[in-house]
């Protein structure tokens, strides 16, 4: 069975190799497993973590939190975004809120959330708050960019309002939703993990990272980081895949 790689894949592959080489050289130079463990040790730790009993619980819970935050901010973002797209007045009203949420440093939000919410809710709240402005803005931009000629055509042909929304507006904004979702995801995962590190819920990747730091398991710390990166990357890929499945009409 022959597997063929495209040129682009070769280049990406080479980039990963270079990253690992740099890592290895630095590790040799620093010569301390407590500052920078060697890549192969870390990889072994990653594999060990995978087979560890608590892995599915920790990683699974973090992923569940991410998905929950994503769904909530998605629905909220769509609802508010659609309203903002339709009504300029509402848009003017909601914009200062969005700007504020976007500008507040994530860490401030987390420290405040720690006071307001239980440890399990903090990461979800943070994820929601960081992802919501992205989705909302993208959706409202999408609504505004809906071709007025298309909506006019639909109106003239007496297509009922409900169908105009579901068959004209929604499909028009799907590319915007997806790009909003994709940016939101990247930020969201990072926010969840920081949230977990600080709120230390019973199950969570962030919790394990904090634990690794306390126990001075630097390789575990890096291993969990790699896992977090993989999760973030995986979900972004999923969205891209979803995009290709849904947005079939673009050539």
């Amino acid at each position: 069975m022959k597997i063929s790689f495209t040129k682009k894949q070769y280049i990406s592959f080479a980039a990963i190799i270079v990253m690992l080489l740099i890592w290895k050289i630095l590790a040799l130079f620093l010569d301390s497993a407590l500052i920078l463990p060697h890549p192969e040790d870390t990889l072994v730790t990653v594999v060990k973590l995978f087979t560890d009993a608590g892995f599915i619980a920790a990683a699974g819970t973090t992923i569940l939190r991410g998905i929950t935050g994503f769904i909530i901010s998605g629905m909220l973002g769509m609802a508010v975004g659609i309203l903002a797209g339709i009504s300029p007045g509402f848009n003017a009203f909601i914009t200062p809120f969005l700007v504020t949420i976007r500008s507040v440093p994530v860490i401030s939000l987390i420290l405040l959330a720690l006071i307001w919410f239980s440890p399990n809710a903090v990461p979800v709240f943070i994820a929601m708050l960081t992802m919501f402005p992205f989705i909302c803005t993208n959706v409202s931009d999408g609504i505004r960019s809906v071709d007025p000629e298309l909506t006019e055509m639909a109106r003239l042909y007496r297509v009922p309002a409900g169908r105009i929304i579901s068959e004209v507006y929604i499909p028009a904004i799907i590319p915007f939703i997806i790009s909003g979702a994709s940016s939101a995801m990247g930020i969201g995962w990072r926010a969840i993990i920081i949230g977990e590190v600080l709120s230390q819920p019973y199950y969570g990747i962030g919790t394990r990272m904090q634990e690794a730091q306390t126990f001075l398991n630097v390789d575990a710390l890096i291993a969990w980081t790699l896992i977090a990166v993989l999760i973030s990357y995986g979900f972004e890929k999923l969205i891209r895949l979803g995009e290709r499945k849904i947005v079939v009409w673009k050539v």
Partner: protein
Amino acid sequence: MRSILLLFFLCFLLGCGNPAKHTGAGTTCTIATLKGPSSMGMIRLIDSISRAGHPDMKIEILNEPMQVRKMMLDGSADYAILPTTMAAILYNKGLDYRLIAIPVWGTLYLFGSDTTITRWDDLRNKRIYAMARGMTPDVVFRYLLGQNGISPDTDITLDYSFPTHIDLANAVAAGRAELAVISEPLVSLVMQKNKNIRAIFDLNLEWDRAQGIPMAQTAFLGSTEMLKHPQQAEQLISAYERSSRWVNQNPDSAAALIVKYNILPDEEVALQSIPRSNLDFVRAGSIRSQIAEYLEIFYHMNPDIIGGKLPDEDFIY
């Protein structure tokens, strides 16, 4: 999939890792200690160093054990005081520090404003705050919970949302945290600020009851480099020993010094805190088995707490 396999193969090709090395200390002798019982026991030594104006001796008083750990990691501390469990981790990870003595025994209390707690069983279904997962207050408390038939994971809720000791103490003082596991001197400080807070369980007593030995909570360590000069080392060690004894025997004068060097804000609190802090400088060499037992308890709970394995004999100076 093939790319991942290739990756693994290449990494193994690149060879195995190297053992960690200890970076040596500088020309000044630096002692890293914690703001609390550790420096309280040392206060006479601190005072004499400061008054004599030794240019080659420096004492760093830090707020958090992590800060002391950092100084040990980068080698800037020649002597250090931090929780014994942390000391074991560092030794097991290859850092060249040896355990000289246990200067502070148990300083942990479960305290708070909840007046309904009289027995351990009353803790069921309560939310108890601790500082960080895996650190001494947390693991000691978990151990004692287990000893009293309470599962830390299912029967109570352990909440680690407060990032530092000081945040947690403030929360208790403000009434936001009703039950917390915390160490002296914060216990005395908070109880002075808020009269509704009382010490519910003396964890050191509980530990003694359960184990038959007191809690060898805090460790005094010295770098192997420094300990290569036993005479100079002994000077410092016995000075600390004398200081510790002096504090216990002269609490009033000690309290004055403690305030002078900003360890605590007023003498009243200091006087309350000294007896609660269990200061007793005991050389590690004479209590090898006690220290081993202390560490073993944690080893059986979760080996990672002390660094994956029981430290060998060379750990103790």
